[in-house]
């Protein structure tokens, strides 16, 4: 199935090269402002440093036990002199797309796995030395952006991703026949993709501590679970199953006008994406989270599909009105549109035709001057 590979030999079959950027957002902020380099740094989702969550932490902060997803209040309780930067998606997305563009230049099957993860399929490419290629990619990324990446190379994406995590930051790890057992014995189970949550806890409770323990108990796991490499270069090739947006509020909210404003904004954001892809949706699903209600979710499918943000918003409100929720405290809101189909909505009634023209005019304005430049009046509450 595979042959032994080292930096000097040529690759044969089934090799995936996984590139994982090291503390991506935090590294970009360090590159922008060299004063921050080496100091414990967190990137916060919002500008208010005490009322947000850690979006990314650099390695100095990670060494203190601070990690992404942690409330910043808790992070500051661990280390009060943390450096703080507000997340700015534009620079992270731009950098990610530049790296994607550079990787496309290799003319290999490429998977844009996430904003900071990329995978190249080297299968069947004779003449490519995977370790040399990994080194070249790392060097070029560092030269262009002054940030580091870790590379993992293995026979499938699961092992390649694991390999990329083993020598972070700035690592390059190859897993092949010669070191398979040695690497898996050293790798704790939670480093494996999908084992960080409940699955990992269940297996660890059964006494499996390392990836090698898993391999001994489920020998086929690393082959059967590897999945098929699917190319994805960031451009949607087929119709999505659903389109959704969600938002976590800075604090619990009982003001129904603010809650409705966020539902309207999320509905409009979904509607824009539906119209961009010529899609209409029949099912609206609303999800709410709060300290008392926990997770609430309900959906309704309608006969008439739509891609009008106002209509999606109205359908979401009707779902809420039918529920037993009465002025709940809300922390997070999500709206999802499913049952998607390709199609253009042809209005029959005069009022509907007028509404359709209005939507088209709004889209033209937002396309020219930027998304959200013109927006429904009641979403103003989301900007305060």
């Amino acid at each position: 199935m595979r042959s032994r590979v080292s930096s000097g030999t040529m690759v044969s079959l089934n090799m995936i090269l996984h590139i994982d950027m090291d503390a991506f957002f935090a590294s970009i902020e360090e590159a922008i402002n060299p004063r921050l380099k080496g100091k414990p740094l967190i990137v916060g989702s919002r500008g208010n440093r005490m009322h947000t969550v850690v979006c990314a932490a650099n390695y100095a902060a990670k060494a203190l036990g601070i990690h992404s997803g942690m409330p910043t209040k808790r992070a500051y309780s661990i280390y009060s002199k943390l450096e703080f930067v507000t997340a700015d998606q534009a620079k992270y997305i731009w950098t990610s797309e530049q790296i994607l563009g550079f990787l496309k230049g290799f003319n290999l099957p490429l998977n844009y796995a996430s904003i900071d993860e990329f995978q190249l399929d080297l299968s069947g490419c004779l003449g490519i030395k995977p370790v040399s290629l990994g080194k070249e990619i790392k060097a070029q990324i560092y030269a262009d952006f002054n940030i580091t990446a870790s590379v993992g190379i293995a026979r499938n994406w699961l092992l390649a991703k694991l390999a990329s995590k083993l020598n972070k930051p700035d690592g390059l790890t190859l897993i092949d026949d010669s070191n398979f057992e040695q690497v898996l014995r050293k790798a704790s189970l939670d480093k494996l993709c999908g084992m960080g949550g409940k699955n990992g806890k269940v297996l660890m409770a059964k006494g499996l501590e390392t990836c090698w323990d898993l391999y001994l108990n489920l020998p086929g796991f690393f082959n059967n679970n590897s999945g098929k490499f699917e190319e994805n270069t960031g451009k949607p090739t087929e119709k999505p199953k659903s389109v959704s947006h969600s938002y976590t509020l800075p604090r619990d909210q009982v003001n129904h006008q603010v809650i409705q404003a966020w539902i309207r904004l999320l509905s409009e954001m979904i509607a824009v994406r539906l119209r961009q892809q010529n899609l209409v949706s029949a099912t609206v699903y609303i999800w709410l989270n709060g300290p008392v209600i926990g997770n609430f979710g309900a959906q309704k499918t309608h006969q008439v599909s739509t891609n009008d943000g106002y209509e999606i918003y109205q359908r979401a409100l009707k779902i809420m009105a039918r529920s037993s929720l009465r002025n709940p405290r809300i922390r997070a809101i999500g709206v999802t549109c499913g049952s998607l189909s390709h199609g253009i909505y042809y209005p029959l009634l005069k009022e509907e035709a007028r509404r359709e023209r209005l939507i088209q005019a709004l889209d033209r304005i937002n396309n020219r001057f930027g998304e959200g430049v013109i927006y429904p009046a009641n979403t103003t509450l989301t900007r305060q």
Partner: protein
Amino acid sequence: MNQNSFSPKARWDRFEPDKCGFNPDSLNERIEVLANFKHAKIFPKSFTWHDKEYIIETVTYNWQERIGQALISYFSVFCTGQMYQISFNNSTFRWQIDKLIQ
């Protein structure tokens, strides 16, 4: 493969942090910039802000963002002991100083 759904999207709520008023360093003032335009790239050399000229010693990072039809090029620059973020709008040809980087 179970990781094939990523595609970065513009978001209507992306301006939220600045709009919340939590960014006291935000300036957004027009400036004059001396820059080289070479091979479709921009290299700012100095800028004049409030009648004072600032010689750019280093451009530490640059990135771009499309807002509608306009392409905004951002630069984080270091001059005389202070970091600044400046930007150029290719639609209005306006240079501005966005903020001081602390």
